């Protein structure tokens, strides 16, 4: 029979995690929705929390013991995440370094790199960022143009990266660049670990549609990087990048922001000319749809966790999570605002319903449908990897990178 309980081993780990969290952190206040740019104080708090977790065996649950990890199970990782999510812990700047970058270093790194990088990342001393996307290379990441040219024992880098989180606070970056434009696009890439203090690197914040800046552009002007900072072989950059993106799946959590409970609460408290919005049949149709999707995502996660708990790999059902949750967030934000009628446009958190939760979400929801794979790319992935349909026919197939047709650039 189905049950939602932990196995005895899982229950013991959960108790251990709770005891640790209780000793150091307070539970989240109910309904706390905080969304603001990271300050240096926030980064310091994240570093301190990361160190504490690492010292107590909760930072690198899946990591080898040799690097300070626990060598635990994916289920333990999930359980710690569930428990940590209940507490008011600092916003982390370590997802990319600990969850994505260092596992990739462990796969491809030289002995020197392995001795140098994983431990300081795990213990909160060094922050990593990702330097993949470019203005002309998003979904088609392998079409990136930032160049690296060999010069003695160094490489010289010129170009531009974009959509980098924590670039200002990062000590190192995971950088993929083009080292050979005369071969097919995937074959001419090489991967580097770059010190973000290197001369010639210029970091500029991007102003988003909300007016906030959560990402940066990173410019490279004659930046010299020693060949010893290369991760993987020359021309092997695509393979390294794919390895890192595969690890991303373990770090992407639940999308923050208004969900079914919030829009349901709003519909219960909103008056539509004498009846509550929640009693209006048109509103009910939307609410029912979002409930079913929210519940469907929750139980889909539980199906995957069941596979992990049984020591198996999760099935392909995981691939629907972001494709459902991101558009749902945008729909809920829009509908919440519309329910408020003419007052819905007010963004001032002192005046707006639920402190502007829906208005804020309206302006960041579009990013959720783009970052980490657009809706369109995710549908391609489901079609090709889950349903087994053929790959797209590509206009750039078999061409050297420098022969591929481009637009204005």
């Amino acid at each position, binding site marked *: *029979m*189905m*049950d*939602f*309980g*932990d*196995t005895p081993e*899982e229950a013991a780990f959960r108790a251990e995690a709770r005891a640790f969290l209780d000793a150091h952190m307070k539970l989240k206040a109910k309904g706390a929705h905080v969304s603001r740019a990271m300050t240096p104080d926030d980064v310091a708090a994240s570093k301190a929390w990361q160190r504490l977790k690492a010292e107590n065996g909760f930072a690198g649950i899946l990591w080898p013991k040799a690097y300070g990890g626990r060598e635990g199970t994916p*289920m333990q990782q999930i359980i710690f995440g569930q428990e940590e999510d209940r507490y008011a812990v600092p916003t982390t700047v370590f997802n990319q370094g600990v969850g994505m970058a260092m596992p990739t270093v462990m796969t491809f790194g030289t002995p020197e790199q392995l001795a140098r990088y994983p431990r300081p990342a795990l213990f909160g001393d060094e922050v990593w960022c990702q330097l993949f996307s470019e203005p002309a290379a998003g979904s088609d990441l392998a079409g990136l143009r930032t160049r690296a040219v060999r010069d003695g024992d160094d490489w010289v880098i010129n170009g531009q990266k974009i959509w980098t989180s924590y670039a200002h606070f990062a000590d190192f970056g995971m950088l993929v660049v083009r080292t050979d434009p005369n071969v097919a696009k995937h074959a001419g890439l090489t991967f580097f670990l770059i010190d973000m203090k290197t001369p010639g690197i210029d970091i500029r914040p991007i102003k988003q549609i909300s007016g906030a800046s959560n990402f940066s552009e990173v410019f490279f002007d004659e930046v010299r990087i020693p060949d010893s900072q290369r991760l993987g072989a020359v021309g092997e950059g695509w393979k390294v990048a794919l390895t890192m993106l595969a690890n991303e799946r373990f770090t992407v959590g639940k999308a923050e922001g208004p969900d079914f409970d919030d829009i*349901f*609460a709003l519909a*219960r408290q909103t008056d539509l000319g004498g009846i509550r919005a*929640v009693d209006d*049949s048109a509103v*009910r*149709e939307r*609410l*029912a*749809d979002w*409930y*079913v*999707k929210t*519940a*469907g*995502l*929750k*139980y*889909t996660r*539980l*199906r995957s*966790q*069941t*596979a992990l*708990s*049984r020591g198996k790999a999760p099935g392909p*059902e995981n691939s*629907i999570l972001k*494709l*459902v949750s991101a558009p749902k967030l945008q729909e809920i934000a829009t509908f919440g605002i519309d329910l408020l009628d003419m007052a819905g446009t007010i963004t001032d958190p002192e005046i707006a319903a639920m402190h502007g939760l829906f208005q804020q979400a309206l302006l960041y929801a579009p990013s959720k449908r783009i970052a980490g794979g657009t809706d*369109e790319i*995710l*549908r*391609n992935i*489901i*079609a*090709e990897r*889950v*349903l*087994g*349909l*053929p*790959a*797209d*026919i590509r206009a750039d197939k078999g061409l050297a990178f420098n022969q591929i047709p481009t637009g204005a650039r």
Partner: protein
Amino acid sequence: MNFDFSEDTGAMREEVRRILRDRFPRGAVRQAVDAGARFDREFWAMLGEMGWLGVAIPERFGGSELGYEALCMIAEEVGAALPPVPFLSTIFAGEALTLFGSEAQRAKWLPRLASGEAIGCLALAGDDAVKLPVVDGDIADIAVVSRSDGLYLVKLEGTAREKIETLDLIRTSVRLTLPAAMERLEGADVPRLLDRLAILVAFEQVGGTQAALDMAVGYAQERYAFGRAIASFQAIKHKLAEIYVALELARSNAYYGAYALEDEADLPVAASAARIAASKAFSLAAQENIQTHGGMGFTWESDCHLYYRRARELALNLGSARYWRDRLIDHLDKAA
């Protein structure tokens, strides 16, 4: 965490699937319909012998008591294969009697329903005098009938029944004029019964969705246009990906429904969500399967219409989407 069917159910699924595929390869059901032989009596007898009809019926009443997980799994496979047998109708009647029948009613009918010796059906639509449409009412021995004052058990032998045309080609419906002699099912909680049946239907719908998606995926890979398989066009790939998304949302909600059949604390919400998600997924898959097949899908011989028809029938047989949306939101509202 154990939110999936057991290994035993998985092994039994393989067996159930193999039997259904062997008996009803593509086209077999339509050919039977064309020949005017809707009800496959021989296969029905096999189902009884194999114990598929009694998995949720207590052992002391002739069932195997394997449990609802097995029943949900069989319903899913039956929903995919569309065999011409009154499976769901008989399960409906058995569930109503198991829940609300007197000891004597259960002792009399459950063993016969479990063995396939008797066929049951459920009569919800209509008024207190005449019920229609009653699916499988032409071949059923008993009907569980809802009236404004409760549920009744009606023996159909000798009662006035006339066949009526419905969207469903595989199962025949009748207009049933209720006789004077009816046995009341005391204390029957109709909404609870509907919740439980909706979860079983959700599994049928999930099976139908998967089958329609598989048909569309298969055809899109075989069919060439403009020098390439149409499955290589994003317009087709994205359509099929969206069906997969709807299917998995429906499947996950149905799994929670299967859990709620055992632990009823959250039954109304679990059943409503399973019903809404599965109706939506099956409707989408059935209509887009035809669309993916193009003109071929509009032909009788394509079989696409069997799912297209069944999708509507299952979406309505326990009340339309409005009833289930209201049930869902009312319960969430009360709990908030």
